[in-house]
């Protein structure tokens, strides 16, 4: 930690700019706790963005940026709250990149950030509950809500002109959450869900489940499950009995095992998986490699984007005051303006200084919807001749 601060400071000094100020940015992640293995990659991503902006010498009349790390844990709301408090009152940060888990994020947002008027951009909190929460316009996230995939799936099903589906989900939080959000958006769009039935993973026999689904009927069967678990059992049973011929397959079901086990039996079925692929991701991976870490780690690019967004918004507002720059974040993220990819932050700073508009895309194709959360990109797939083919990105 000390070493890092020292290193960052040295880097800032060696840049040799006549800097006006040193802006501190909090990196609040779960360095301890159940997701601690994700924290290093995310930190590296965020600090890469901070370094890039700081080194450019173009930030706020030559100001530098320093990262201050704090541990949000993942499950201890009390520890997360006091870590957030320390960042704001002791370290005097101007924005918080964090927190990591949805629970810790909620605690810090409600207890600390809103009380102090501090902006938070979480790279990894995905709970649908955060969408509805009151946040005074201070909270954003560069990861899509779990509810988003359900909505995207409903769109895709509608686009296939299917109006009535049966729905089965694996009986856990993932399956239930996805099934709920899909059902809600599908019915809002005028579709009909004939049955919602849970299935347990790890059973030998799914004929009773398939029989119930078949009786309820529908033009397609949505299987919100796992391909190496009960999801495949349901598919097998439904195909064998001729109950359904078209299946809608979300992320848990789209894997190469599907091609191996079913081949062309699934032709015509379709689905989607979250995928931040494209030019931005490739560039991010490249500069991450230059900086000596693996950019493909989970949420690393989202962390980069969260830090970059906050700093670019400060530049656009001409102020490091959270209550001022918070209003610029949506505009930076959604444009209109010139697209900014990873590694082009210096250029973005120039554009903003010159009064030109930018549309920050970054490593995870940032595009905010609702109250400031990433829409996320989803890869729509279809199975043709026994192969999973990409149709388009949504």
């Amino acid at each position, binding site marked *: 930690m000390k070493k890092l601060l020292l290193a960052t400071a040295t880097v800032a000094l060696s840049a040799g700019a006549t800097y006006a100020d040193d802006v501190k940015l909090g990196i609040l992640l779960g360095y301890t706790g159940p997701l601690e293995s994700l924290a290093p990659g995310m930190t590296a991503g965020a600090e890469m963005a901070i370094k890039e902006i700081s080194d450019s010498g173009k930030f706020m009349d030559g100001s530098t940026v320093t990262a201050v790390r704090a541990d949000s844990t993942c499950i201890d709301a009390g520890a997360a709250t006091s870590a957030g408090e320390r960042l704001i009152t002791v370290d005097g940060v101007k924005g918080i990149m964090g927190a990591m888990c949805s629970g810790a994020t909620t605690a810090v947002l409600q207890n600390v950030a809103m009380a102090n008027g501090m902006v938070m951009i979480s790279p990894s909190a995905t709970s649908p509950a955060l969408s509805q929460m009151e946040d005074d316009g201070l909270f954003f996230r560069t990861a899509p809500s779990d509810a988003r995939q359900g909505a995207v799936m409903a769109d895709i099903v509608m686009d296939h002109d299917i109006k009535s589906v049966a729905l089965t989900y694996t009986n856990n939080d993932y399956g239930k959450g996805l099934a709920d959000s899909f059902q809600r958006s599908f019915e809002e769009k005028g579709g009909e869900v004939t049955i919602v039935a849970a299935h347990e993973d790890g059973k*030998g026999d799914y004929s009773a489940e398939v029989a119930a689904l078949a*009786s309820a*009927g529908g033009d397609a069967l949505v299987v919100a499950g796992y391909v190496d678990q009960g999801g495949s059992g349901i598919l097998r049973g439904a195909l064998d009995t001729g109950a359904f011929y078209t299946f809608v397959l979300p992320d848990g079901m789209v894997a190469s095992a599907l091609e191996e086990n079913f081949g062309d039996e699934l032709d015509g079925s379709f689905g989607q998986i979250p995928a931040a692929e494209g030019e931005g991701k490739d560039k991010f991976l490249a500069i991450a490699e230059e900086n000596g870490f693996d950019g493909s780690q989970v949420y690393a690019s989202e962390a980069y984007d969260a830090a970059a967004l906050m700093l670019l918004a400060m530049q656009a507002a001409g102020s490091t005051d959270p209550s001022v720059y918070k209003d610029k974040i949506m505009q930076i993220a959604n444009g209109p303006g010139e697209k900014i990819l990873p590694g082009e932050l210096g250029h973005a700073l120039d554009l903003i200084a010159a009064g030109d508009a930018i549309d920050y895309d970054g490593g995870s194709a940032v595009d905010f919807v609702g109250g400031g959360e990433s829409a996320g990109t989803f890869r729509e797939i279809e199975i043709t001749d026994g192969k999973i083919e990409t149709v388009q990105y949504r």
Partner: protein
Amino acid sequence: MDAINALVALTNYVIIPATSYGAQLALGALGVTLVYAILRFSNFAHGDTMAFGTAITILMTWIIQQAGLSLGPLPTALLALPIGIVLTAGFALLTDRIVYRHYRKIRASPVVMVMVSVGVMFVMNALTRIVISVFSVPILGAREAVSGVDEIQFADGARFLISARDFRDWTGLAEPLALRATSVITVVTTVIVVVALFWFLNRTRAGKSMRAFSDNEDLALLSGINPARVVAITWIIAAALATIAGTLYGLDKSFKAFNYFQLLLPIFAAAIVGGIGNPVGAVVGGFIIAFSEVGITYAWKKVMGYILPAWEPSGLVQLLSTDYKFAVSFTILIIVLIFRPTGLFKGKTI
């Protein structure tokens, strides 16, 4: 036409699955019932004996497949089955020699024997997983090898007698009907095994001595029946039934070492409903449990819609959600134990 559609839907989703499931339960329940009749305890390890036997059969199937042999349209596993039975029977006899014989000698009470079988169950389950994963390496090669908890599909040969798409093309009916080869094999094998078993029990000397031993142990001993021989034959038959039932279940669904433990409850329910210790009861009980499980959790909406179009049910007409499938066997078990503890066919009282 509607009546035919209703019948087809019923056959496809209730009658065919319940019949093959019932046949598998019947074979399992026969094994449990025989052990109960002769050795006088509920063998909780029977489910995992099925898993063990199936694992051995799968290994043999792979070896036979690699030797290039096959049964044409029939699954190769049928060819491997006799070897699986012999090895599993040997293993059952070994278990009896090492474990159960000691408890018989000290005349342990049935409750103690049941607990012993629970211990054997855990050991067998672990062994099954070890055996299938370790031996899959030399047989399939390191790359294709399976782990002990993997789901394994080992059915080869023809998959369907009637496939759903073909049936629809032939008949033009709205409802599909599929008849899988494994369902037919299951039922045919069960019929053959049950007939052979009843012939053995009723017509042969060894079978008669088993029944005598079951009816009255002391009298049987007095009339010169060798108890060690009766016990050995019982284990061999139980292991054979377990291996056949397990392999048929695995062929029809898929093999997973943990799944057989879950079959234990419906199997015991089947044996007790029919009257434990009574072979006819075990077979009937197997089908009663299977048809109740499938029938009660089936959503009757479609069938009702065909039969009574005027009524047009808005709900699913499902008595119990499929999540509660096992609750059905439990409920039947409890009702039978309260109102008719000897079961439908006058078995023994538990």
